[in-house]
């Protein structure tokens, strides 16, 4: 039960490794452009160890950061040539830290604004107002609502109805089967008309490939009319 309490506390205090790192940098009053990497790494690891000792679940992110710090520390130990233009290994951590701090300050600035619903209020006009001509009204809806609507349907679906969540992908094979089926029904298909009835580039390409495959397999023949230029697709009699 105790571990549960600590778990909650850890998440409240340090939401992620960046927060912990910033805390340690502040606590030790060090310059972010000149981080004493071994001090901070040691403190960081001590903290992780302490958390482990307290039986707290540590998110993987914290361990990744520990590895990053250790890596930087080891790189700092390597001799560096005076005139080398290799950047300070600590940049690897300083840069994201600064970026994170910038975003933190941006969040604070957002929070300091006069917020609608907190500092300032608008009218909530009566819902009865204005029926208008529905036809002309624009629609206000967003994608998230559409997905949620679909999710709702899936959730409420009785188990005997199975539907694929992912939009169906056309396969050349399926298209061939469809074409054969169409040809059996109609006898022939005019290529131009067939293409016009399709929706989207992918469908046209798939259909085209399906026709080529059928001709290659000798399942269908293509004949172009000399006068009209129409290309007609016929089904070959199966042997």
């Amino acid at each position, binding site marked *: 039960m105790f571990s549960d309490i600590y778990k909650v506390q850890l998440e409240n205090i340090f939401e992620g490794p960046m927060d912990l790192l910033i805390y340690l940098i502040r606590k030790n009053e060090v310059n972010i452009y000149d981080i004493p990497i071994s001090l901070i790494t040691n403190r960081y690891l001590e903290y992780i160890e302490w958390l482990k000792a307290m039986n707290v679940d540590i998110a993987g992110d914290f361990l990744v950061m520990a590895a990053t710090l250790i890596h930087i520390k080891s790189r700092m130990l390597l001799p560096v040539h005076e005139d080398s233009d290799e950047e300070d290994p600590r940049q690897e951590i300083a840069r994201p830290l600064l970026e994170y701090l910038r975003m933190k300050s941006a969040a604070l600035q957002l*929070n300091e604004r006069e*917020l*609608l*619903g*907190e500092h300032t*209020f*608008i*009218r*909530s006009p*009566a*819902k009865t*107002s*204005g029926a*208008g*001509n*529905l*036809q*002309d*009204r*624009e*629609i*206000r*809806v*967003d*994608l*998230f*609502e*559409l*997905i*949620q*609507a*679909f*999710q*709702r*349907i*899936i959730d409420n*679906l009785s188990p005997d*109805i199975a*539907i*694929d*969540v*992912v*939009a*169906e992908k056309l396969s050349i094979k399926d298209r061939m089967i469809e074409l054969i*089926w*169409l040809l059996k*029904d109609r006898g022939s298909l005019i290529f131009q008309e067939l293409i016009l*009835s399709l*929706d*989207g580039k*992918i469908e046209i390409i798939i259909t085209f490939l399906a026709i080529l495959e059928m001709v290659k397999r000798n399942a269908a023949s293509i004949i172009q009319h000399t006068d009209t230029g129409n290309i007609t697709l016929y089904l070959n009699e199966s042997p």
Partner: protein
Amino acid sequence: MPELKSIIESFLFVSEEPLTLEKMKLALPETDVKAIKEAIQMLKDEYDHRKGSICLVEVAGGYQLRTRPEYADWIRKIIQPFAQRLSPAALETLAIIAYKQPIMRSDIEHIRGVDAGGIIRMLLDRKLIKILGRKEIPGRPLIYATTRHFLEIFGLRDIKDLPVPKDISDLGKPTVEAHEMTFPNNFIPTPDENT
């Protein structure tokens, strides 16, 4: 403390329904009813004097800010082009067509379990869906698909961009928020349920 008259004005501005004297008194426990009444009268006079489009009326046992009747014709012009929301039923039907297109009406009805004729017609009218052709099966039923306008409405370049429920479930559960900043719900327009 701001002027009583202005405080009352702010109350009337944010209230959805006519505001009673009792409610105002509750929000202003240290002010007596007589002073509130006087302030309301002053405010009413001010609105009348100013000759703007808004007036203060006594209605349904309370007070309310309203537009003057002379502006009704103008207001109808601005209300009309206002964005409309799709009903949950329409949204669900649209979602089925979007994700399962090309699809026959009977399949839509099979999935939703109810008649879809009216909604399909409405979606056709609104140019959100189109008739793609007929399915070559007995009865040659019409098949439906979404339109270019649909993509525009949802800001999609291509139907392939349509996020699937998995994209959302991958995000996990929404975090429960319990800190600092207040965001009232009651100012976020709620969907019209009356399509």
